[in-house]
């Protein structure tokens, strides 16, 4: 019923737009010709083969596919869009909830002077996202977008207020909790006359979120409305920047925290200093009981209202990125990171003819230092944590990277990393030993001429734990601007079980032209963990033929 009346409304609106008496045919033409349509499309398909050697299970459908199409129409201050998604059935490793087809995203928005309104689906974040961020990572199947109303109003110069209300997406449905929020951001340099040219730039922000979910629990009296608030500052002075945010969440018993009534807290600080040829970032983060979902019973990555970023380097090389990546621990962690980049000038001793870059990164994540309170039958606060102490090690990563051009034809990038990975906690596999790994990577590109080049990656990973040592060799030949070919072999030569000393070979070919790109590959895919922004998806081993088409228009 609801949809039919919406359809009627849409028809009615369309007719009335065209029939407003004082718009003649010519100006209708003019209005329509200002319209712009944009969008994108992606289709990923895989034909699966059973491969008992690598543990690739039989897929009854044989072929699985994920696809989507986005269309956005804009005409001056008006904008509307839809997305159609298809999972027939979803590729291995995607959440089971993605099954079937449907329109999952539709919105309409307009802007009038200082007011901007969006109805339908939208993505929004307040500050750093500690209490509110809705976003999508299509490759991970992550999407917690809102369905509701968003209003932005620029109250005065430099002062913006954003209000949101809605429910959140979970696969092809919406969660039962309602999320309401308000954010105020003030740019002092814009707001205060005479401060606009100042070398010091300050942005202040404050936000609040409240969620509602009925209490139908027979065991506990649960808060139906849970509030959270955050304050932030972003200060820039010349080459120096500091961005800090503190968030507090009222008691929010949930499946994540074992239904305790302890409030949550988070502090996030990032500082940086950079000038030409030098950059330094120091960052710290502490989150304590800050899992915040619009359904208190939800798990995995479902219905999260907020975003707690991982403070570790986001690696890209295969062995480094997908064997032991860190995933944020929502219930509590303390994390630090330092990141340095330095450029040795051209002509200097170390720089040589073309210069050389060095990057050094160190990151740690630990559990909170907690004391169990044993108050399950009284106040149910669960535990106490000390602010300046840390507990068990979750993750450590020291890595350094040298980038150097040797000649017009040859350049290279060399990486060393040392990882400590608490598999027990990060993967939720009790009893698994912590992994200590050393990784070395040489990435060398040889350019035959302007169009032809060959890139080689040689990677090794040494560890006494888990699956033992690995080696990877990748050859990537590109014929610019349209073609590339790649061959890769990953070899688990150090596995204690000689039957598992397996080669994971893979060959791929890609073509792209304009906004279109087609990739095909055949071979084995090692089981791995794919992460974006600290959110990870475990992908099982598979074998077969893979096809991917993407297009933007």
């Amino acid at each position, binding site marked *: 019923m609801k949809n039919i009346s919406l359809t009627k409304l849409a028809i009615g609106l369309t007719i009335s737009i065209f029939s407003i008496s004082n718009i003649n045919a010519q100006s209708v033409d003019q209005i329509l010709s200002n319209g712009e349509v944009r969008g*994108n499309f992606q289709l990923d398909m895989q034909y699966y083969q059973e491969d008992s050697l690598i543990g690739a299970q039989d897929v009854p459908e044989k072929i699985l596919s994920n696809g989507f199409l986005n269309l956005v129409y804009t005409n001056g201050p008006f904008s509307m869009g839809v997305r159609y998604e298809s999972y027939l059935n979803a590729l291995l490793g995607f959440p089971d909830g993605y099954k079937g087809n449907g329109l999952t995203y539709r919105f309409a928005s307009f802007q009038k002077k200082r007011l901007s309104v969006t109805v339908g689906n939208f993505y929004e974040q307040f500050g750093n996202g500690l209490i509110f961020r809705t976003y999508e990572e299509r490759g991970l199947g992550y999407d917690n977008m809102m369905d509701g109303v968003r209003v932005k109003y620029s109250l005065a110069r430099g002062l913006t207020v954003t209000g949101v209300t809605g429910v959140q997406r979970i696969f092809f449905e919406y969660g039962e909790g309602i999320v309401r929020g308000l954010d105020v951001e003030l740019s002092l340099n814009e707001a205060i006359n005479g401060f606009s040219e100042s070398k010091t730039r300050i942005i202040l922000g404050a936000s609040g979120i409240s969620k509602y979910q009925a209490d139908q629990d027979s065991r506990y009296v649960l808060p139906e409305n849970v509030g959270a608030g955050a304050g932030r500052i972003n200060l820039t002075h010349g080459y120096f920047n500091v961005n800090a945010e503190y968030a507090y969440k009222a008691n929010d018993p949930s499946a994540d925290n074992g239904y305790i009534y302890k409030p949550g807290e988070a502090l996030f600080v990032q500082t940086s200093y950079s000038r030409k040829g030098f950059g330094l970032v120091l960052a710290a983060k502490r989150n304590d009981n800050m899992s915040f979902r619009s359904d208190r019973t939800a798990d995995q990555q479902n219905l999260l209202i907020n975003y707690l970023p991982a403070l570790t380097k986001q690696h890209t090389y295969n062995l480094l990125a997908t064997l032991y990546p860190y995933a944020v621990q929502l219930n509590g962690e303390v994390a630090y990171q330092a990141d340095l980049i330095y450029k040795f000038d051209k002509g200097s001793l170390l720089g040589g003819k073309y210069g050389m870059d060095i990057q050094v990164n160190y990151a740690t994540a630990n559990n909170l230092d907690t004391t169990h309170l044993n108050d399950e039958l009284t106040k149910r606060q669960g535990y106490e944590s000390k602010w300046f102490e840390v507990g068990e090690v979750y993750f450590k990563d020291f890595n350094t990277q040298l980038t150097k051009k040797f000649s017009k034809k040859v350049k290279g990038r060399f990486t060393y990393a040392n990882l400590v990975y608490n598999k027990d906690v990060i993967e939720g596999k009790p009893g698994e030993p912590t992994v200590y790994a050393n990784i070395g990577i040489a990435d060398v590109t040889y350019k035959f001429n302007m169009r032809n080049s060959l890139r080689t990656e040689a990677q090794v990973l040494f560890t006494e734990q888990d699956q033992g040592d690995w080696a990877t060799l990748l050859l990537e030949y590109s014929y610019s601007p349209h073609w590339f070919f790649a061959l890769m072999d990953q070899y688990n030569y150090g596995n204690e079980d000689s039957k598992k000393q397996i080669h994971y070979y893979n060959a791929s070919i890609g073509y792209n032209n304009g906004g279109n790109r087609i990739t095909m590959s055949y071979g084995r895919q090692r089981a791995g963990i794919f992460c974006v922004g600290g959110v990870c998806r475990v992908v099982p081993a598979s074998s077969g033929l893979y096809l991917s088409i993407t297009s933007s228009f």
Partner: protein
Amino acid sequence: MKIIKSLLICALLFGTSLSYAQNTKNKIPAVDVKKMDGSKFNTGEIKNDGPIIINFWATWCSPCKRELNNIAEMYEDWVDETGVKLVAMSIDDTRNFAKVAPYVNGKGWEYDVYIDPNGDFKRALGVNNVPHTFLVDNKGNIVWQHNSYSEGDEYELYELVKKLAAGESIE
């Protein structure tokens, strides 16, 4: 049935718009993004007398960084010869936001760098993944785009930039 009906309506609306929209080229959408110091910037203000390259990248994306570092070596000459402007639009979110300025300065890039942490500009332009490059002529029309990067792609890009600067069509 409901879904089919809604789809039909959408197809009708988009179809009508599409047939009209084809007569003209898409412009750069006006969306709020951030400068590296965290303050607001509206993409409607991206302007240049010559061609504009809009390049979507991220600090965690290797091919993106290879592309922008390769172009950086020649960028001064490109600007001198064609008046081109390169806008490097980072899609880094909170996790890596603070790393953008140190990376850009550390590498000594001379580009106009902005950050799109909420993905609004990315969605408005229909970008799937990074690196993704758009070429805009001096009237603000988007005339070409390219997804991914392979060594040497910058030469094709520059050939197109030169054509645009000379007032030629690159259809």
